């Protein structure tokens, strides 16, 4: 009896070892291709680079989603539409944006009150997409078409002359907006 048991154990162990070595060899020859997944996730994010997801930019957040570290509901500028698109891509349940990461304000752009701007140029390096033009002691202004609404320029301003304003969401941008 014990000889049979030993034989059985030996065969099982041999089988397991063979499988293990074969898999190990296969794993070294089949590296995972994760970059494309990160690209696909990044393509769905709004690219505001605001950091409200608590990652330093959209691509790090995309990488975190790809590796399973972060959930898909952490992007307020993307709003419900982005969560839904991510849910469809990754075959998960769509959920509302986690309010802990900020309110969904819709599309907003920054606006500098040029009457109060003192030209300190502290907001220029804060903008992740270089949408503010200006120089020392000259009034600054935000190029509205290029502003993503990340609000990173609000904090550095020493006179609080920057605010965010909602952009009216109409069917075509060519339509004249309703008077405020």
């Amino acid at each position, binding site marked *: 009896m014990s000889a049979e048991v030993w*034989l059985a154990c030996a*065969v099982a162990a041999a*089988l397991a070892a063979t499988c293990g070595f074969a898999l190990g060899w296969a794993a070294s020859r089949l590296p*995972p*291709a994760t970059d494309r997944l990160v690209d696909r996730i990044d393509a769905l994010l709004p690219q505001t680079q605001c950091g409200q997801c608590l990652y330093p930019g959209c691509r790090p957040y995309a990488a975190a989603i*790809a590796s399973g570290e972060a959930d898909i509901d952490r992007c307020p500028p993307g709003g419900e539409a982005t969560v839904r698109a991510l849910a469809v891509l990754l*075959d998960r349940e769509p959920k509302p944006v986690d309010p802990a990461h900020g309110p969904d304000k819709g599309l907003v752009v920054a606006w500098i009150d040029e009457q109060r701007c003192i030209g300190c140029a502290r907001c220029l390096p804060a903008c992740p997409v270089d949408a503010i033009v200006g120089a020392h002691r000259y009034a600054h202004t935000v190029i509205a078409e290029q502003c993503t609404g990340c609000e990173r320029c609000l904090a550095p301003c020493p006179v609080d002359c920057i605010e965010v304003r909602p952009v009216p969401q109409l069917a075509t941008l060519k339509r004249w907006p309703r008077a405020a």
Partner: protein
Amino acid sequence: MTGLLLLALGASLVNNFVLTNFLGLCPFVGVSRRFEAAAGMALATLFVLTLASGLSFALWHWVLQPLGLEHVRTLGFILLIAGVVQFTELMVRATSPLLHQVLGLFLPLITTNCAVLGVALINVDRQRGLLESLVYGASAGAGFGLALLLFTALRERLDASDVPAAFRGAPVALVTAGLMALAFMGFAGLGAR
């Protein structure tokens, strides 16, 4: 040739592993929400089933039977299946990381899919040859895939419909699966002499 055809028909339609034998229900309900994911899972399971039935035949005839270790077959087959599934996971991860992300835990769970072990054991019990075993495994996989894809298509429609709150999600899905099983009963007797 006709024998193989009948075998294939039997494994895929008449004795469909999901809808007639009720094996492999975990991935059937778990990965059937989106068509792309379900298609990936169907292909993965087909791959695993074919490979596993071939390798388990080899293990049975060349290792276990000659050594008189038939009683170790369950352990041996499970080990093999686990290895094949892990290999499949490596392949999926290398070709489509998105599919890998989407299938998530269900990919390694193919190991515990009773359909896979079931196919291996049935092949051994019926003392089939290598070709027959492979055909049986592949057809079982095809039948599983067919049932899974049909079920996914129905579930996609259900998700967009106005289902009463108490039935939303798994309950109405299982009712649908039951109705599908009833439909597949229509194949009973097909190919019988």
